[in-house]
């Protein structure tokens, strides 16, 4: 082994600079650029053959470019490389010259060199760019990582080598290779971003296009994802003309994995929900399926409720934030969690609870992205913030309520980055329609007529002739007045007495069962 000789007369320096300059205007293709650099290395060292070997992901060297002094490209598999020399360079990570004539018997005896039939070998290590390493503090202070080597053969001993020029060539190799890798990574990221964007579009298309709108019930909802896709879902399942299943679910985690599972959860509910089973049975079936099919540390919290036209609300809160009912008085009631989330325990038992929604009440089902919304001081919006919004809500339409919630959270966070996905499902129950109540009881009741402003009957509720006649004669111009009447009416005893509101229809034993299931759903231990 001979140390690299540095002497470089001025004229030689100019020549070297000219050679290096040509590598600076290399053709745009990766291999073309590397070929130009190998040619420059051959020219600078007067070698007969040169090759560039790059370290592959397997850790092995692979000949990427091979050139001769006549600017020809010998077949890559015919390029003779000494494995023992490569090992030496990998160990020392320094330039290495091996010459047959030198006294280093330990090197000269190695058959892998002797078989090459060359006089001298010059190897220049190509290190990964130090700039990339400096950004990563975890590798600071470590040895530089080998990207590859420039490998040169000569029939004569190498002399008058310009060490700096050769190192500069090695750095150029590193720049070209790493730029190419970055470009490839950029293309791959763009492809993945595009796929994520399409996934987000598909997920948004899976959300209900039209929510129920009718004389008894108005529903609306929205989701706001942290990323392009979200782990929250909502849906409304029409069980009959007078009954709807309302779902809001929240998958643990965010991003693509959560979005996949959110779509699965939503699909399961739409499929099983339409069987019109009791809510606890729907949730149990969903739970069993998810425990069998989903990853072990995966689960979802959800709120599933069945609201019928009498205002009876049967629900299962499975580890979810409490849904809220805003009574006409402004009082807000919580429908707390009484069950395990789904996907956790296959043997979990689910119990329903029941409550009565009165005409004029609002129901708000949401995910924890609302109470856990943070402002720039790190403070949470909290359930208290949401309750305050509801208490102060002037009570007009369900769309107004959704907008109040959306705007309230936005105002609180003051533009701070959203920390979790958000889903909100809001319902406005306006009371039983004629088809489920006594026509005689409602006859001549002007307040009731005014309490149901005329709306386009879109969505999944098909309007009956009776319902249409009920809303006839009202219009949006009287909306504010109508709302006031509605709030008053919905909470008045006279309506329940006259209409025979749904409260009496809830069997007491159902209510007891709904609220008393705490011990039943406790899992067996051990």
């Amino acid at each position: 082994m001979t140390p690299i000789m540095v002497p470089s007369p001025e004229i030689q320096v100019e020549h070297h600079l000219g050679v290096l300059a040509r590598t600076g205007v290399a053709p745009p293709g990766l291999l073309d650029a590397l070929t130009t650099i190998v040619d420059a290395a051959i020219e600078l060292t007067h070698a007969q053959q040169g090759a560039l070997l790059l370290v592959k992901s397997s850790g092995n060297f692979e000949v990427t470019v091979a050139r001769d002094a006549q600017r020809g490209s010998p077949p890559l598999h015919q390029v003779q490389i000494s494995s023992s020399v490569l090992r030496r360079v990998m160990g020392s990570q320094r330039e290495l010259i091996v010459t047959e004539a030198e006294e280093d018997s330990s090197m000269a005896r190695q058959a892998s060199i002797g078989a090459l039939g060359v006089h001298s070998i010059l190897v220049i290590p190509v290190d990964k760019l130090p700039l990339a390493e400096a950004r990563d503090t975890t590798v600071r202070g470590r040895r530089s990582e080998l990207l590859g080597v420039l490998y040169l053969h000569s029939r004569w001993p190498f002399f008058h080598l310009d060490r700096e020029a050769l190192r500069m060539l090695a750095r150029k190799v590193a720049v070209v290779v790493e730029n190419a890798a970055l470009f490839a990574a950029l293309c791959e990221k763009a492809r993945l971003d595009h796929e994520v964007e399409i996934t987000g579009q598909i997920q948004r298309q899976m959300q209900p296009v039209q929510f129920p709108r009718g004389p008894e019930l108005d529903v609306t909802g929205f989701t706001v994802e942290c990323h392009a896709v979200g782990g929250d879902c909502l849906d409304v399942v029409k069980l009959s003309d007078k009954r709807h299943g309302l779902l809001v679910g929240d998958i643990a985690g965010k991003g693509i994995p959560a979005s996949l599972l959110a779509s699965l959860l939503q699909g399961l509910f739409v499929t099983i929900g339409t069987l019109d089973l009791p809510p606890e049975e729907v949730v149990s079936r969903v739970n069993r399926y998810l425990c069998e099919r989903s990853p072990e540390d995966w689960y979802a919290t959800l709120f599933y409720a069945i609201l019928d036209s009498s205002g009876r609300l049967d629900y299962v809160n499975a580890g979810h934030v409490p849904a809220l009912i805003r009574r006409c008085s402004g009082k807000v009631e919580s429908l707390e969690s009484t069950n395990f989330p789904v996907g956790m325990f296959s043997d979990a038992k689910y119990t329903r609870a029941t409550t009565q929604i009165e005409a004029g009440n609002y129901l708000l089902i949401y995910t924890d992205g609302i109470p856990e919304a943070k402002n720039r001081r790190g403070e949470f919006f909290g359930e208290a913030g949401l309750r305050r919004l509801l208490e102060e809500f002037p009570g007009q339409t369900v769309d107004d309520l959704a907008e109040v919630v959306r705007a309230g959270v936005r105002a609180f966070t003051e533009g701070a980055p959203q920390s979790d996905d958000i889903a909100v499902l809001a319902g406005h129950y306006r009371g039983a329609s004629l088809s489920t109540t006594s026509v005689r009881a409602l006859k001549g009741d002007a307040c009731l007529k005014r309490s149901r402003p005329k709306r386009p009957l879109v969505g999944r509720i098909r309007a009956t002739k009776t319902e249409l006649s009920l809303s006839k004669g009202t219009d949006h111009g009287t909306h504010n007045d109508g709302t006031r009447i509605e709030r008053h009416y919905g909470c008045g005893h006279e309506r329940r007495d006259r209409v025979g509101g749904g409260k009496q229809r809830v069997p007491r034993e159902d209510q007891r069962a709904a609220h008393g299931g705490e011990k039943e759903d406790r899992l067996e231990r051990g």
Partner: protein
Amino acid sequence: MAGKKKIVLNVGDVNYIDSIGVGVLVACFNSARSHDAALKLVNVWSRFREVLQMTRLLTVFDTYDSESAAIQSFRKSLRAAG
């Protein structure tokens, strides 16, 4: 409980847990249960307790106010089993 392994997890310094953390905790619990092992939590406070309350996991996990109380509970279980 006479499990093969007895694990006490002191979460006294944990004042917040997100849904992923709960998922990992439940996976640990299920794994322990399937291997006849026992996992007990110590010092479950603040937001951690709220989340376990809402998800009803407080009915699943054995929780204690001190490590010594948790360890003592293993001894009692062993005596009861013996």
